[in-house]
């Protein structure tokens, strides 16, 4: 037998926690900032256009201001020269925020094992989902988005997120 609000209002009311309600709303309206630097960014163009259509998953409002975005998609090679800029963009995004590292380069430096290329962005910012591929196919980008949605559903924003500490190579 139902108790509390459900007992009084019947099926017309669902009770939940504030956090899960927020997460549920957020899941389907991610606003990505695409930090596209190289070839992988061209594949993101496909993700955004009609055939793969990222708007099916509610994430088509691409923002180019970090202050308006909650999902950072790093698509492309990050050089040492680029690294401080990536970090700045990440820092400018408001919590809660998530990061997808798309493609071999962003994840590990890819096949650019040399003097210019940062060997994985997780040396400077935290990453939630890694996507393999050089470049990843558009489906893989979408898959990563779904993985982020799953993380959101399981996470307790106020607790888990705020407590997260990360110290990268560019943090003093």
């Amino acid at each position: 037998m139902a108790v509390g609000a459900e007992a009084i209002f019947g099926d017309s009311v669902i009770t939940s926690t504030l956090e899960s309600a927020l997460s549920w709303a957020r899941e389907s309206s991610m606003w990505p900032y695409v930090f596209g630097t190289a070839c992988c960014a061209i594949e993101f163009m496909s993700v955004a256009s009609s055939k793969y259509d990222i708007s099916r998953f509610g994430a088509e409002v691409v923002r180019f201001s970090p202050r308006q975005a909650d999902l950072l998609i790093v698509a492309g090679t990050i050089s040492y020269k680029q690294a401080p800029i990536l970090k700045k963009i990440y820092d400018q995004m408001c919590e809660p925020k998530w990061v997808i590292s798309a493609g071999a380069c962003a994840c590990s430096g890819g096949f650019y094992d040399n003097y210019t290329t940062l060997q994985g962005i997780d040396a400077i910012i935290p990453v939630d989902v890694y996507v393999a591929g050089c470049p990843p196919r558009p489906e893989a980008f979408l898959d990563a988005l779904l993985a982020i949605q799953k993380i959101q559903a399981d996470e307790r924003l106020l607790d888990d997120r705020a407590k997260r500490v990360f110290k990268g190579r560019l943090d003093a």
Partner: protein
Amino acid sequence: MPKAFLERFEKEVSIDAYGAYKLDASLILQALHVLYQNDGYTFLVDMTAIDYLHQPSALRRFAIVYLLRDRLFSNVITLKIDVDETLAIDSIASLFKSANWAEREIWDQYGIHFKNHPNLKRILNHKEFIGHPLRKDYPITQGQLCHKSDDLMDEMTPRLKRKGIESHDALMFLNLGPAHPASHGTIRTFVALESETIRCAISEIGYLHRGFEKSCENHTYNQIIPYTDRLNYCSAILNNIAFAHAVEGILGIELPDRAQFIRVIIGELSRMIDHLVCLAAILVDMGALTNYWYLYNPRESVYDLLSKLTGARLTNSYMRIGGMSHDLYEGFEHDLHVCLKAIDTGVGDTLTLIEHNRIFHDRTQNVGIISQEEAINRSLSGPNLRACGVAYDLRVNAPYYHYESFDFDMALGSVGDVYDRIMVRFEEIRQSKRIIEQAMKRLPQGAVCVADRSISLPPKHEVYGNIEGLMNQFKLVFEGVKVPPSESYRAIEGANGELGFFIVSDGSPKPYKVKVRPPCFYAMAAYPSIIEGGMIADAILSLGSLNIIAGELDR
């Protein structure tokens, strides 16, 4: 033949084993003046340096190489200057504006000083970088962390001063990029604004410098093909072709006809889809978003074809030294037809929307103009140069792969503004289609690789069927193609212009040095001068119309 030059420097000039003119360092400016004025070598193709540390036979450690083209663009000559232990040489930036950035790059990568250079500072590597990475004694994996971006005021203040602006009070400084949607990747332009007018602009590149040239030095020739995909990733296959073409030139081999025709067909298809992205992006910058779908969706159908053909959508690695990885598949012709039709429709729909559109005309005509003389002096090439009305297209001026036998027109502009650059690209899409259709009709049967077993892999049935085939495969995979010693440059018409490779080989399976001539490097160097004096909104369109691709720009 540079007649006047050879007469004037009869005693001083010598020709080295690879056909380069060698001259004493003190004569370089004079020599270039004669070449420029009397012999008409007015186009500086590229400049680079060679570090001979591991070649003990060389007298001096460093040499500088200048590549020049004459007025007709069909002849290339190479000038080579040994650099003495002062590691300094005269700058030629007073003669060729394009040398400004080229010399900065040599300084950055090799640590060779250019006397009287207007602004000799690093260009690809970051400010905190120590050492010169393309020197042979710099370890390839030695990365150096960068903590802070350059504020560029060291360039801005003197430049403003030269323009007579002493006080910064009335100015607003603004960074366009490197993380800005309209900067198409990672390009940064730092501008001084007076209301919305750009008084002064400085471009900084190198944010996508990924050490292509150094990586080449420790990979075999065929292993480099995937790296070339990622130079201009909008038309990966054209980069494959350009590199393979350059190596094949050193090997002295001629491809079977079928291979040449396939290269033409797939190359032109790549050119089309490259132009599609460029046009789609610039129209988005202009606020004409609908066209993005019209132009981008046909690209998807080409991706489908390329996936079937090469297994990859974007980074295809289809070419090999001496041919390509495999022949066309069954049903290719039908798929190609579908692609061409889709492109036709997309381009048609877009043109219907913009061709007679007042807003489009007002935004693009007489905006971002670059004159013919300026464009040549700055070494622009490809659609950007043709938009100024200069008839230079390697497919016509120095044909390869039977291009002389195809019936197609060179698209030329007249003003050299954003409008011309856009329209030249639209027209080139049409012309590429014509070429493809003719090539498909004439496509001969036969092999797609040269038969030489020290260059291309044997057919699979031989590998599994007899010991010789097995050995050939084994040796080629483990050792790679051995390329005889040479220093040579060869180029094709890439989607963005003259795309060439200067390769120093030493007989081993790995190149001693590779230098790309990236067409948009020089276009980008010209960019600040194009936008100065204009409005900020026009600067965005100028950038889009030059089609700067960071992968090839920064390498």
